[in-house]
């Protein structure tokens, strides 16, 4: 399991109820179910990936978060997880609001567009950055709304949700983000992991 999922899993208590939005092949929810006795559900847009999840015995619903989150009642999950997908939605603001309606808390991870390699790529090459975490070209990427760690922090102030824990990840190393180190973390982290609540 990738480091990002380890961090997410470590921040979720056993015995809780979790919805993984865009659960993919179900790696994270399978771990949460088996290792932490968590009641997990997945929402996934790809038919093939839903099939993979079913073959692992996971409870997954085929659907699109922007349409299908609304079927879940308020506060029906302790945590809603959204891993590296926020930037792909047409309306990320609406999705975050939905995450925090459906879940008491949400864990949102974002590929950080403020990472120094990305900044350098644009500065030196003058073309849209292509990296390991962002492997697609500008014309075929699914990412519509790239943002930086700093953007996400400012986003939380604008649409009024609380970030109660922020973790920066660079390769396998992780560290906490706070107001004082935000500039540095935004420059040296590939990924931001945010635990948020209303």
């Amino acid at each position, binding site marked *: 399991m990738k480091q990002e999922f380890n961090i997410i899993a470590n921040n979720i208590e056993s015995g809780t109820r979790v919805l993984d939005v865009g659960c993919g092949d179900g790696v994270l929810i399978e771990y949460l179910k088996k290792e932490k006795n968590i009641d997990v559900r997945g929402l996934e847009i790809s038919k093939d990936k839903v099939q993979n999840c079913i*073959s*692992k015995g996971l409870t*997954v619903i085929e659907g699109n978060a922007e349409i299908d989150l609304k079927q879940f009642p308020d506060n029906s999950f302790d945590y809603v997880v959204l891993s590296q997908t926020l930037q792909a939605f047409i309306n990320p603001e609406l999705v975050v609001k939905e995450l925090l309606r459906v879940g008491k808390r949400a864990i949102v991870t974002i590929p950080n567009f403020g990472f120094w390699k990305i900044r350098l790529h644009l500065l030196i090459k003058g073309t849209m950055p292509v990296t390991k975490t962002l492997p697609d070209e500008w014309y075929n990427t699914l990412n519509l709304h790239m943002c930086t760690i700093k953007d996400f922090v400012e986003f939380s102030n604008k649409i009024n949700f609380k970030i109660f824990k922020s973790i920066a990840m660079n390769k396998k190393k992780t560290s906490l983000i706070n107001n004082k180190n935000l500039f540095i973390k935004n420059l040296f982290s590939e990924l931001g992991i945010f635990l948020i609540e209303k």
Partner: protein
Amino acid sequence: MEKLKKLIVKKPLKLDCGKIIKDFPIAYETYGKLNEKKDNAILVFHALTGDQFVTGINPITKKDGWWSFAVGPNKAIDTNKFFVICANVIGGCMGSYGPNYKDSSTNETLGINFPVITINDMVNAQYNLLEFFSIKKLFSIVGGSMGGMQVLQFASNFPDQVKTVIPIACTSSHSAQNIAFNELGRQAITADNNWKNGDYYTKNSNPNKGLAVARMAAHITYLSKKGLQEKFGRKLQERDDLKFGFDADFQIESYLRYQGSVFVDRFDANSYLYITRAMDYFDLTKQFDGNLSKAFLNTKAKFFVISFTSDWLYPTQENKEIVIALNSIGADVGFVEINSDKGHDSFLLDVPDFLNALKNFLDKSNN
């Protein structure tokens, strides 16, 4: 017909129409072995024109059972692991209590004196099989189309007696379009002079023309436009050119006529009227004051809803409404829409994605 396995239900059953029936037969078939713990039983519900002969050779029609692709040794519903039970619905014509039932006291066939039954009546009648086999909890209930409606009703009526629930290509409430197609079929049957107000059993002349038309019309609704176009297009039937007449010039015409003609050999016209009526009356949402979630409030079962992309008779959206209702009460529900060009009939055919999903769900739920 006498060789069919039958359970005679002694206990009175109050039907939704108010009438009480008792000492009535339910014809059933089983596949695989019931284990000692009696926890490996799957109750399969058949669709409109199905019967209890799910798989293997149907002893009456001598053709493959209607769900041979899905049920059998090592298949999706693996009869090496599971004990599969399927009953002919009441109202049917394969040995269960239906309009072709002969009342022994009067020695007369019921015809349209048979009461109008509902999906609820069907599942309540079949519930007797659980007691008969001393099964406290079914491992699963599975069915497509009208079989799926029975699955939903059964899960609602007997929430503690099912571990997993698999409604396929169905709806919680028959739509106006569904009712319209069924009415077309019924009108075709009753317009046939041989129908004689349902009293044709002793006349040696069944309303076969009407029943065949009903089947032909229905058959179109089971296929997709794309599927029809790919299979038949405008291909001609054993001729090089149009004949400027009303014979079957096109292969699709010939195909439909054939489907109609083989159907009348195995199905009773009155059963067609009664069963389509039961489908039309099905509205689980209305049974629970317009809130489908309430139908499943007490459920602890694990649900898996399956629909097909090209099914326009019971489209994905209607299947999704079941998922939404279950999610809104926090029930355990999975859902997948299977890619298929084969229309509503997909659930009966060799559609690997569907069969794999069904198998994986059952096998994983078995651990």
